[in-house]
């Protein structure tokens, strides 16, 4: 899928796009499905489906626990791909695999790309895989029409950002602050300058994530980037208030988009 074209066409009708996140297998595959139905109803633009891992070093407490619980319930790689396949068939938004490198390494790069492409995914985000370690993963993802999403972080030098940016396709995942997922980000503190640095390093659309929790945050990002990423906040909302509260937050995010 040409993600870049898709993103540009969606931007015709809204100021910013919304990418949301599901940890497959937590709290259950059934609940995951209902989350996706709500995302569809809220006309979410892109969705990350996270493959759980036992050592999720880039994730904060909410997601770390969710990874662990999903594995405790026995979620397997087969079930993950099966869920991805059903989701891409049923829902119109592009789906991205998010997960840690060991899953890819154990499958082999080739099998990973074959299976991911066969179940209709648009690309992948692997937070613990530096560009030096891609090797044939770049070529294989090209061959299978998958977009490898590059990650930019605030501590990267401009030279490093440019180097990473050259490898990324579809859009760039810009990390809005230091640390791991799930902690609130103060968007007033220099987010525009950071977004400008990120933008200078790549010509694909820019997404910002980590600590984006509500409608006000999304509005603050208007003009700074093309995509707002909301992950932990939605899961926390489901945990504290169930489907109704989850739907409310999705509506709030949806309204903040235009």
């Amino acid at each position, binding site marked *: 899928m040409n993600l870049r074209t898709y993103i540009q066409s969606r931007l015709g009708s809204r100021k910013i796009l919304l990418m949301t996140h599901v940890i497959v297998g937590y709290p259950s595959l059934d609940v995951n499905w209902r989350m996706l139905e709500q995302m569809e109803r809220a006309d979410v633009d892109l969705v990350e489906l996270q493959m759980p891992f036992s050592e*999720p070093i880039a994730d*904060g407490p909410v997601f770390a626990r969710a990874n662990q619980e999903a594995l405790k319930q026995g979620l397997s*790689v087969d079930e993950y791909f099966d869920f991805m396949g059903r989701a891409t068939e049923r829902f119109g938004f592009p789906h991205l695999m998010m997960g840690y490198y060991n899953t890819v390494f*154990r499958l082999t790069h080739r099998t990973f790309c074959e299976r991911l492409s066969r179940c209709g995914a648009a690309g992948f985000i692997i937070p613990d895989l530096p560009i030096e370690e891609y090797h044939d993963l770049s070529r294989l993802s090209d061959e299978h029409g998958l977009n490898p999403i590059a*990650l930019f972080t605030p*501590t*990267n030098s401009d030279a490093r950002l440019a180097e990473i940016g050259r490898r990324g396709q579809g859009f760039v995942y810009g990390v809005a602050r*230091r640390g791991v997922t799930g902690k609130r980000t103060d968007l007033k503190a220099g987010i525009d300058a950071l977004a400008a640095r990120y933008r200078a390093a790549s010509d694909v659309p820019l997404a910002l994530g980590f600590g984006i929790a509500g409608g006000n945050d999304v509005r603050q990002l208007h003009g700074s980037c093309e995509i707002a990423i909301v992950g932990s906040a939605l899961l926390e909302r489901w945990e504290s208030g169930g489907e109704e509260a989850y739907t409310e937050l999705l509506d709030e995010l949806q309204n903040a988009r235009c």
Partner: protein
Amino acid sequence: MLDSLLKNVEERTGYFGAYGGAFTPEILRTTLDELIAAFEEARKDPSFWEAFRAVMQSYSGRPTPITHLENLSEALGGPQIYMKREDLNHTGSHKINNVMGQGLLVARMGKKRVIAETGAGQHGVATATMAARLGLDCTIYMGAVDVERQRPNVFWMERLGAKVVSVEDGSATLKDAINQCLRDWAFSMDDTHYVLGTACGPHPFPQIVAWFQQIIGQECREQMMAATGRLPDRVYCCVGGGSNATGTFLGFVDDAEVELVGIEAGGAGLDSGRHAARLAGADGSPGVAQGYKTYFLQDEEGQMRHTHSVAAGLDYIGVSPILACLRESGRARFEAATDEEVLAAFQTLLRREGIIAALESAHAVAGAIREAPGMGPDTNVLVTLSGRGDKDIFTIAQALNDPGWQRFLERKAGR
């Protein structure tokens, strides 16, 4: 000596053969690069190693001696057994070597805070000691299970001024404490250094830890030459993450005639599924986690398994990429000792030589005891005793099921 291993790097940064690398979130990249630069600069400065040796001499009593275990040698009827006494270090184990070395690096980098993971608590105590001496803020992450079973070490870490954070994630042991350190560091890197305790994790940690720990091997080499006039025929070390084994082996790695043997935690037995043997046996397989590529105890899909050992310090999913490389090249051999063998070896060493081994270190003793009868009387064996066991009294007394100790605990608890 470390450099001869690094020649296997295939022009890829931080690799030892096919193992190592730096698989971390990009946020840590700059910090790791800064650490690489600081370490390279220090390594090239001849006064740095001398400063390190001087600190280890005045603060930790180095060089630690080798002891000829005459009674044990006679009882086993095979080789002459010599023991490298890392148990005689300040804080009771070889962990202090790496910690004081990284402390010197922290001073060069000008950071104000250190964090560290700990399993058994020895690395945590050593780090808290270094932080107290250098006036640094210190946070120690420790799995909740380990906090339970190593209370005395928690007590000392807190008394030394460290903040001890109990980690409830995952299996609540050493690997989870490492994850938590990486997460802390992803936020705090500007003023914080992560004192990783073993020769694992992302580049440059395996290299840094091995470089400081090679002080063990260098001393062993000189001391064995002085005591016996030649190099040992065989060397035994216990292997958790692998820092004492790497440090000892580096003294002999270029001497092909010296056989290097690492002893991993066999737990309830290699066929029981309840052990922590990554290189011995067939349960370990290549993977990438916690920032590096090595042999892990994991399932087919790459999810890490629960490990087991009577020794908390060996209860870990991964192993140093340097040791994975030495195994692959055939330079070192890896075996496992069961909990049962280890407790027997612990008592044999205690009764015959009056040396109280840490349960981790007793794995190396168990390996030597098992294999010694097959070796000739004209051969010499060196065993590294990585740490002492007297401060692990709660764990050991429980493992030995000591009735007097049990009554003592009940009386204390009843008060």
